């Protein structure tokens, strides 16, 4: 089942085409939305929330047509914005309570849930303090609490770990994983931090210039990167590359002095050392390229460029 279905969405701001006939489906569970600045991630989120009208195409969220019932969509999804968003003068508990009643919860229930959710996100002790006095990390958690208070089925999280220290980041990621894993929430995580996406999501969609550059299951994408290494040598570079080619390896990219090399499935990293010996070179640095989504991300960007 798909939580979000987007078909042929177009959106332009003047001469700038933010989304170019974007067609994509988000499966239930954790979905990472990746892409460089200007890729169209935020525009897509705003269209899915009904804040921006699309120039063409259709979008449904949890089966609801966004263009026809934007308020209904916002009633059943939670949204955690990237930038600071709070109402000055209110305490943490009042802020979350207000977010709850705006989503249609009865006031008494919203009040009860506000306290529970603030404990859940780790702001229980600070819930009576004015949000104006909260630190950046606390406001980040408050935004998450506001997105959760009405118990949405689908949660859009826009850079949820921005401005958090490492411990806070781990805690928030743990929370999001708990929501997706234990409580069965569907999450759309919009982030520049690939490890965040890896920690939470099973599926990624990479946008570039308003189109899908690549998408798929995180494990599958990582598997595509298996057998790829970063290697730096001292010695004759051309001879080393020739030795690699003779052994069946392929040069995938060059990053300054570092080479990104793919080796056949039947081979191991020993092939690189054999090529170095054959070309009278010395391997100075060697690391696996498959440790994160970064490789797939970069490759998708390069392929579409």
């Amino acid at each position: 089942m798909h939580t979000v279905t987007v078909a042929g969405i177009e959106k332009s701001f003047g001469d700038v085409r933010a989304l170019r006939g974007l067609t994509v489906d988000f499966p239930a569970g954790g979905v990472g939305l990746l892409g460089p600045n200007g890729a169209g991630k935020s525009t897509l989120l705003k269209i899915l929330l009904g804040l921006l009208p699309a120039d063409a195409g259709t979008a449904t969220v949890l089966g609801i047509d966004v263009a026809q019932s934007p308020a209904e969509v916002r009633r059943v999804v939670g949204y955690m914005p990237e930038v600071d968003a709070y109402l000055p003068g209110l305490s943490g508990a009042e802020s979350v309570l207000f977010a709850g009643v705006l989503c249609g919860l009865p006031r008494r229930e919203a009040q009860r849930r506000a306290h529970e959710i603030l404990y859940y996100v780790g702001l229980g002790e600070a819930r009576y303090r004015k949000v104006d006095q909260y630190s950046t990390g606390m406001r980040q958690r408050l935004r998450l609490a506001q997105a959760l208070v009405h118990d949405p089925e689908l949660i859009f999280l826009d850079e949820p770990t921005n401005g958090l220290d490492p411990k806070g980041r781990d805690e928030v990621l743990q929370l999001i994983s708990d929501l997706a894993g234990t409580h069965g929430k569907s999450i759309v995580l919009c982030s520049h931090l690939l490890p965040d996406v890896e920690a939470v999501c099973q599926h990624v969609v990479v946008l570039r210039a308003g189109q899908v550059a690549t998408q798929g299951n995180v494990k599958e994408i990582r598997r595509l990167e298996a057998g790829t290494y970063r290697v730096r040598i001292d010695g004759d570079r051309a001879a080393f590359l020739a030795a690699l080619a003779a052994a069946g390896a392929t040069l995938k990219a060059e990053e300054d002095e570092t080479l990104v090399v793919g080796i056949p499935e039947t081979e191991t990293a020993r092939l690189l050392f054999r090529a170095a010996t054959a070309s009278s070179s010395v391997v100075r640095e060697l690391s696996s390229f498959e440790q994160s989504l970064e490789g797939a991300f970069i490759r998708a960007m390069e392929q579409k460029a």
Partner: protein
Amino acid sequence: MPVFEQGYRRYVGERSTGSRIPLIAWENIRPRMKWWGWVLLFLLSFWPYVIYAVLIFMTTLGTSMFGNRAMPPLPPPTVAFASGDGVNPGAVLGLLQGNMLGLVWELLHHASFASVIFPAVVAAGLLASDRRTGGLQIYFSRPVTKLDYMLGKILAAASFVALTTAAPCFLLWIESVAFGSASTFTWKTWIAPLVILGASSFYALWSVALVMSLSAVMRRPAFVTIVAAFVNLALEGLGAILSEAYRDKAWHVLQPSYAIGTLTAPLCGLQIPDWISAPAAFGIAFVLPVTLLALVWWRLRAVEVST
């Protein structure tokens, strides 16, 4: 200790689809009522009512308690602006006895400046703060339409205006009914609450439009307060100066208090004096604030898109 020491609980109860306007209005009034400075401002803006209330007390209970020492009432005026800008006790007493609705008009006319200053101080941040702190996203990422948001904010601002206009007028009417010697007074003035609401709406329109339009383009509430007070003062001063300089009272129409007073006079059973232009007053007291609110609406869309 895990961060989620309190477990997450599902919610399966009802969800309201009713209007969000009262919610938004109340949630914008409530935090501002915690600020005690507004009480002082409120008392300062209530002075016309205090004077009127004392005069009414003196003509009712006061005359019997302290002897017949109250000043004689003047014949109640039938034309707006006939009593001048100052509080004329004789005219107030005359109006009380002969024309309750005229008294409402006089009180609103004298409270007109406070009706701008008070909301300008208290409600300056209604839009400015939301824009500064990203509060717009809190509203618009929930089932709140732009119309809900706008009307909620207008209702909140109008409530602050009402504290300086409708509230003292209602108090005055209730006081007059309570202490009035004539048993038929209530019957004769039954329409007063409606007139008070109608006339106060014109004052609210001007004040809300001025404060909200400035709040929609500025990010600092303090600037909104200063500029709103300055604009109102400047228009009041300009009208007064030009009418003196040209010895032509028609220039008074530039003063918001005169323009609004011209529109509310017929509601209160008073004639519009022939020296003031009703169309010009309509332009300043109605068309201008409606235009300002339209600009707020347009601006709100621009802000909404940029967030």
